[in-house]
């Protein structure tokens, strides 16, 4: 018995010694990208989170895509051109000679099949982005008309975001949706090879891609949930690109010598939604006071290491409708106190400040900072920390008390998406602010813009609406955030404002 014990202990020591050999660099020319979570599906109609979308954008093509130099501007992809033939019809001319990875041709039937799927309610997660569409009509093999119920100025943009990926009708009829979700076929620059759940997804270059063969032959997507572990994987050369670097880890990456950070502004705006239905928060002056009481610059500098810019309304500068004349509320605690007094709350007010813990970057710390600043002007802030699903439930029931942290964004880079889809009729927070109820001037403006095809006129409406939004302050406007990725120096890679990782544009130095 003791000998056996000694043998076991010795064996362990030997095993530990045996591993004391250096790990070599990443094998071959495989590009490894580490994201914060594993994908849940490869069916582009069944997920909307960026770590899933990144796979979709490389395995599939959409009709149109964003110009990487100017996100929000459309570029052709599987459609070569598009035009509005009447107020309710958009016509797309399709690229010819494109094939899916299984050899199936891409044509107007594939577009119709995809649109039919998108407009079926209750079976997938992207219906809302396409709910204005009535049907798709095949004109000829390479022309398709998409017909909407009401005029839809952003119809084409809808196809650049999630859900716009073109699906292979024959393949899906042959297998089924469940098989398709784990063995996908698209027309994109990369073909699906394998998915080992929670470990890796492997893609390889599509040799017959219509834009030419991609330069990087094999790409491995690895999920590494821990922030520090992702940075460690990058600096050790186990991954060449990592996503979601937190500001606190930036200096570690820069000091490693092997790597750099790539960062750019996104269209995510961080705000506290205000439930302004009743109580002190129904008073515009109280809401304005909250906006004056919070020092956004200090928060950006201390909590986000400068990777954000302050905002004056909930529309980011990436989106159509952004009004550059609207400036952020300045930090002015004296004015905040004066406004509270004017509103009849000289003795202060009680306000709930709610956020998740880890749902948004530094969310709990942000709430603590905001609560302290609010306390300085006489707002007795009570911090609440919510679990993700609890938070969603509160939102859905429109019962969140006080302030709730959120980071709305528009996938169409349009004011309609970031504002009216949330606040308009049927929107998730429509109830929270009576100023957007039916019959109000704000409601009329936003509803008019929704069906106005003339973009000059639409821009003018949005500029006015943004001013109302700023003045009425139905939100505590904080900042527009940056995304930070990490990359090895030997990789040519730039972060994109739409947060997408487009493999076709990545090369080795």
């Amino acid at each position, binding site marked *: 018995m003791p000998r056996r014990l000694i043998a*076991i202990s010795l064996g362990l020591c030997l095993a530990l010694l045996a*591993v004391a*050999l250096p790990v070599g660099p990443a094998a071959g020319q495989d590009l490894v990208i580490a994201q914060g979570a594993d994908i849940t599906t490869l*069916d582009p109609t069944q997920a909307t989170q960026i770590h899933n979308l990144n796979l979709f954008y490389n395995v599939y093509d959409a009709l149109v895509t964003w110009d990487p130099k100017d996100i929000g501007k459309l570029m052709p992809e599987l459609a070569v051109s598009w035009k509005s033939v009447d107020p309710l019809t958009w016509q797309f001319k399709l690229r010819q000679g494109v094939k899916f990875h299984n050899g199936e041709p891409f044509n107007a039937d594939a577009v119709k099949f995809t649109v039919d799927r998108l407009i079926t309610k209750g079976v997938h997660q992207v219906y809302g*982005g396409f709910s204005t569409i009535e049907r798709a009509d095949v004109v000829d093999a390479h022309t398709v008309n998409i017909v909407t119920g009401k005029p839809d100025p952003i119809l084409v943009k809808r196809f650049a975001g999630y859900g716009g990926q073109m699906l292979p009708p024959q393949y899906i009829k042959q297998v089924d949706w469940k098989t398709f979700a784990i063995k996908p076929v698209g027309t994109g620059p990369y073909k699906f090879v394998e998915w080992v759940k*929670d*470990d890796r997804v492997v893609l390889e270059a599509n040799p017959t891609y219509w834009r030419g063969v991609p330069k990087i032959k094999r790409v491995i997507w690895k999920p590494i949930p821990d922030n520090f572990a992702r940075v460690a994987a990058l600096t050790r050369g186990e991954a060449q690109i990592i996503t979601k670097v937190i500001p606190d880890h930036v200096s570690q990456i820069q000091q490693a010598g092997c790597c750099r950070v790539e960062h750019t502004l996104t269209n995510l705006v961080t705000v506290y939604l205000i439930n302004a239905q009743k109580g002190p928060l129904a008073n515009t002056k109280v809401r304005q006071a909250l906006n004056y009481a919070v020092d956004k610059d200090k928060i950006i500098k201390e909590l986000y290491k400068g990777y954000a810019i302050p905002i004056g309304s909930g529309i980011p500068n990436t989106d159509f409708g952004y009004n550059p004349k609207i400036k952020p509320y300045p930090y002015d605690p004296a004015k905040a106190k004066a406004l509270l007094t004017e509103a009849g709350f000289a003795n202060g007010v009680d306000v709930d400040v709610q956020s998740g813990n880890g749902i948004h970057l530094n969310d709990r710390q942000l709430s603590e900072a905001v609560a302290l600043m609010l306390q300085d002007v006489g707002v007795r802030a009570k911090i609440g920390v919510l679990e993700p699903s609890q938070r*969603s439930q509160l939102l859905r029931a429109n019962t969140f008390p006080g302030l709730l942290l959120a980071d709305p964004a528009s996938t169409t880079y349009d004011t309609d998406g970031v504002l009216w889809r949330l606040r308009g009729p049927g929107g998730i927070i429509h109830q929270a602010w009576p100023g957007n109820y039916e019959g109000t001037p704000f409601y009329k403006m936003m509803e008019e813009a929704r069906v106005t095809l003339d973009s000059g006129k639409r821009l003018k409406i949005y500029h006015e609406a943004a001013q109302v939004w700023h003045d009425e302050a139905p939100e505590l406007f904080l900042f527009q955030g940056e995304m930070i990725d990490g990359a090895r120096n030997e990789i040519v890679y730039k972060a994109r404002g739409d947060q997408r990782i487009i493999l076709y544009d990545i090369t080795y130095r």
Partner: protein
Amino acid sequence: MRDFLIQKLGHTAIVVFCVLTLVFVVLHMTGDPVMMLLPPNASREEIDALSRTLGLDQPLIVQYGRFLARIARGDFGTSLQHQQPAMGLVAERLPASALLAVTALGLAVAVALPLGIVAATRRGTVLDRLAVALAALGQSAPIFWTGLMLMLVGSVILQLLPTSGYGTWRHLILPALTLASYPMAAIARLVRSGMLEVLDADYVRTARAKGLPERRVVLKHTLRNAALPIVTVVGLQFGLLLGGAIVCEMIFSWPGVGRLMIFAIYNRDFPLVEAAVFVMAMVFVAGNMLVDLCYAWLDPRVKLRA
């Protein structure tokens, strides 16, 4: 023996039923998967449509009835996030979890047993104090800290092992060491205190008096008698290691059941959580049963009777 097994299986069924009911109620009362599935700016129309499709618009009691009917057929349903059979997703990750748990437990026992024995037989010496201090450290250091420190030293500074992932035995070392740290300490302390209790017993003195070599006294007469509580702890630890490796799996990106389950809970993926909890409950029950069987083997006075 047969009666014992039948009774145990009966207990198992009751335990699993209660656990699944509790999980069903808690999950349904505290969150909504539809909101987690749809994009944040989804409209009420979309939310209601998906709720109807998933049957979540029905009263809780109706949903519970359907749930029980499904479970009775052995059907754990389709994961809401993954759109794949829930039990299949859990089964896919079980081997990775089992590998990590078995390695960690093996490591824990292999280190803790000699450490505890040495500490007990050399009571009061530097060796004993060192062992006690190590055990206290292992039990009090939070697992995320241990994991990150091991990664920092083993991967980043010394560059000996991969930071995270799965696939080779090198990937296994850091997570296994991390996971082993707590049970290693717990078992070492238990071995030490158990041995100390027995070392003073009359039969040990008798064994020494009749001139048996000390090694035989310690390993045959003392250890075997001190083994009962150790076996209990080891048995329970296995269940904990299999299902409770969540933090370790997150840090080292290990594709196990714990990580699957935590994301499923976040997203209120009801079928997936239920399937994972079912498997975990079964593992715990099986671990307990093994402990009972070991008791009978270790202590002839114990009879397995219903």
